[in-house]
């Protein structure tokens, strides 16, 4: 029984063709010694039965994967009578690379020019007759999916069984051709199953499988060692020559419409434009922040606040009605609802902001944002890829710092770690929101955008400084693979959004609750003192540090306590302020205790000062150094403090 092999690139329609030819007469097994699936089937043509073997899809016949080795071994050692090479007519030049390798092996090839209907739709015209002459192989146009040309393919295949073919010999240029000749000589009279010239080329291509095979021969091994010693690396030249050969052979035979722009190309022309890319990114972020306020605060915020107030009132009444301990009532109404409740009020904002960010990411825009930011980032000594960790840092600095593992270069990684806390994380959002609600209710989106932009600007300045001082080194370059634009999957967007909200709620119920509880206890001690007063233990601690913040405009003890609570977790800042000013409405209390200018300097401090404990612990873990963790805690505090003082002092000159 004759054996026919089917070879082709992945997605060339090879398996569809296999199914179209064999129907249900097929069985699946495994190639011996590997985990690659072996599909074999049978078909009858002119009353004669043939075996058809579907070889694994491969772009080349090197030794880069098991699939390739299986495919080429079968072509060389399985002795198929004909090899049907299925090629995608819409991407013919790429597919012909495999064809050329088959021809170099001396296989008896029949080309199935598959997906010809799609090629016609795309107005790709291929001069099949002349291509067949130049390649010296029969070509049949097929559309396996529509079962077009399958009978003709079988007819041509059967007719070509036993055709006398000689291996294709491409000239690889003087140097390589000379090496090939020398290796062929060395291979003469040696008992290898493969064609000598093909083996010689593979040796020069540094094919590990063939090199390991021939290394048993000391003479050849010595030759290969000398090639390595003399730095004679030819593999790229060989590949290039094959592409040149394809170019020559297809010259004037393939007509393709030039530069057909896809939807992604058209959108990219605008969104990744050299001049407009960055302003568009800024504009998109302003819109996102503005929408966050409009929907999250103005529309949804009121409902959540009323709901929390309702629950707080209900529980307080219940506790009073059952004559509960006064301290318990105080803890529940002022400590828990005043503190944790003040944080929970911001859940709608978190929901809306992350909903929009998830949409931007899911559509493929975030990757473009990294693309447009790249040039700017390279100028400040950052790698464009650091933008991934920066984007992640906008959610939480812990995974932001962890994602710097994507940077291989130590210099890039250290800089990316040290600037990540300036990416304002979601936990700091409630602080800005409450201050914006108190002082800038009409310009929420713009103020929030400015804070985020300031964080990025400071990150860039520090990156430049670090790259010029602490971490000098060579730059690494890369190329990005941008995903095509797509409509966001609501499933993925809502799942992502829910993860953020759930994480936020979990932290509110654990870390924030713990911090608020400790602070509540401190604000009640020593016994007999007026709760939440300056005389309480908490008030005394706060008052000790408060003068330090006077130059920054927020030298009250509540502000200093909240900042230190924020080192445990940033959400605790609002929780602490909410508890300390309880039962007064927080925004009202802030207006009484901060000026507009000191509110701005406080927000700047919160943006830049020491990141939360979890982030510092992550820095320690990722850098494996207590020193860098301490450096991070101290330098960010100093920077935040200096910036807050500068904002307040310079601002005071004008206001």
């Amino acid at each position: 029984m004759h054996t026919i092999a089917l070879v082709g690139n992945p997605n060339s329609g090879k398996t569809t063709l296999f199914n179209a030819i064999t129907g249900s007469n097929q069985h699946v097994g495994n190639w011996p010694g590997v985990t690659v699936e072996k599909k074999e089937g049978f078909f009858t043509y002119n009353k004669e039965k043939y075996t058809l073997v579907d070889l694994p899809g491969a772009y080349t016949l090197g030794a880069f994967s098991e699939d390739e080795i299986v495919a080429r071994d079968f072509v060389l050692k399985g002795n198929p009578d004909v090899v049907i090479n299925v090629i995608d007519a819409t991407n013919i030049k790429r597919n012909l690379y495999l064809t050329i390798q088959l021809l170099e092996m001396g296989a008896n090839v029949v080309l199935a020019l598959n997906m010809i209907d799609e090629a016609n739709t795309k107005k790709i015209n291929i001069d099949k007759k002349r291509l067949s002459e130049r390649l010296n192989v029969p070509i049949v146009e097929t559309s396996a999916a529509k079962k077009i040309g399958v009978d003709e393919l079988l007819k041509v295949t059967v007719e070509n069984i036993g055709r006398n073919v000689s291996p294709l010999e491409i000239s690889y240029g003087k140097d390589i051709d000379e090496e090939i000749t020398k290796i062929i000589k060395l291979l003469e009279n040696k008992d290898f199953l493969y064609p000598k010239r093909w083996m010689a080329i593979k040796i020069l291509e540094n094919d590990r499988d063939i090199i390991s095979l021939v290394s048993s021969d000391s003479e050849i091994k010595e030759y290969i060692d000398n090639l390595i010693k003399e730095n004679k690396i030819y593999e790229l030249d060989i590949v290039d020559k094959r592409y040149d050969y394809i170019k020559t052979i297809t010259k004037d035979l393939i007509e393709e419409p030039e530069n057909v722009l896809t939807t992604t190309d058209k959108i990219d022309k605008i969104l990744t434009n050299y001049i407009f890319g960055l302003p568009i990114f800024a504009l998109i972020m302003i819109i996102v922040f503005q929408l966050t306020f409009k929907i999250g605060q103005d529309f949804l915020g009121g409902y959540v606040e009323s709901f929390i107030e309702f629950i707080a009132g209900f529980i307080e009444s219940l506790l009073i009605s059952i004559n509960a301990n006064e301290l318990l009532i105080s803890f529940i109404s002022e400590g828990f609802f005043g503190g944790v409740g003040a944080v929970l009020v911001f859940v709608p904002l978190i929901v809306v902001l992350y909903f929009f960010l998830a949409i931007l990411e899911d559509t493929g825009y975030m990757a473009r944002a990294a693309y447009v930011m790249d040039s700017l980032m390279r100028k400040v000594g950052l790698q464009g890829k650091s933008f991934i960790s920066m984007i992640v840092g906008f959610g939480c600095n812990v995974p932001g710092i962890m994602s710097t593992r994507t940077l291989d270069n130590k210099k890039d990684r250290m800089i990316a770690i040290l600037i990540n806390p300036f990416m304002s994380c979601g936990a700091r959002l409630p602080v800005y929101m409450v201050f914006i609600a108190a002082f800038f209710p009409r310009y929420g989106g713009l103020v929030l955008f400015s804070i985020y932009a300031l964080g990025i600007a400071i990150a860039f300045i520090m990156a430049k400084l670090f790259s010029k001082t602490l971490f000098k080194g060579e730059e690494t370059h890369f190329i990005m693979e941008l995903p095509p634009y797509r409509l966001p999957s609501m499933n993925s967007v809502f799942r992502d959004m829910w993860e953020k909200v759930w994480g936020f709620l979990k932290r509110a119920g654990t870390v924030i609750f713990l911090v608020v509880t400790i602070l509540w206890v401190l604000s009640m001690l020593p016994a007999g003192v007026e709760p939440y007063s300056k005389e309480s233990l908490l008030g005394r601690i706060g008052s000790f540090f408060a003068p330090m913040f006077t130059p920054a405009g927020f030298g009250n003890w509540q502000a200093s306590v909240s900042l230190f609570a924020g080192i445990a977790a940033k959400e605790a800042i609002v929780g602490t302020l909410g508890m300390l000013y309880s039962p007064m409405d927080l925004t009202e209390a802030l207006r009484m205790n901060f000026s507009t200018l000191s509110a701005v300097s406080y927000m700047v401090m919160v943006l830049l000062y020491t990141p939360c404990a979890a982030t510092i612990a992550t820095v320690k873990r990722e850098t494996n150094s207590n020193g860098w963790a301490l450096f991070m805690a101290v330098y960010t505090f100093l920077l935040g403090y200096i910036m807050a003082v500068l904002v307040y002092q310079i601002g005071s000159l004008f206001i």
Partner: protein
Amino acid sequence: MLKECLKLISEGSVKSTKDIANKLNISEMEANQFIEQLKQMDYLKKDGSEFSCGGKCFGCNLSNCPTNSFMTFSLSEKGKFYLKKL
């Protein structure tokens, strides 16, 4: 062309296959093909391929793991060595 692609990437003058296509005056499809070839031959390596957060990091505002969101490839040791040799 493969050598030229590699050189362009090492110089940092291209950021995507689109840029490579423009610089070398070839189609984007061809540029993609060359990049795929370089990846397959280990001249380019996927960055951070050893890192995976499994998409479960709290606070990460990407719906997928950041390393899957978009990929970057840079010169492998083999690629760097090859260019040094040229």
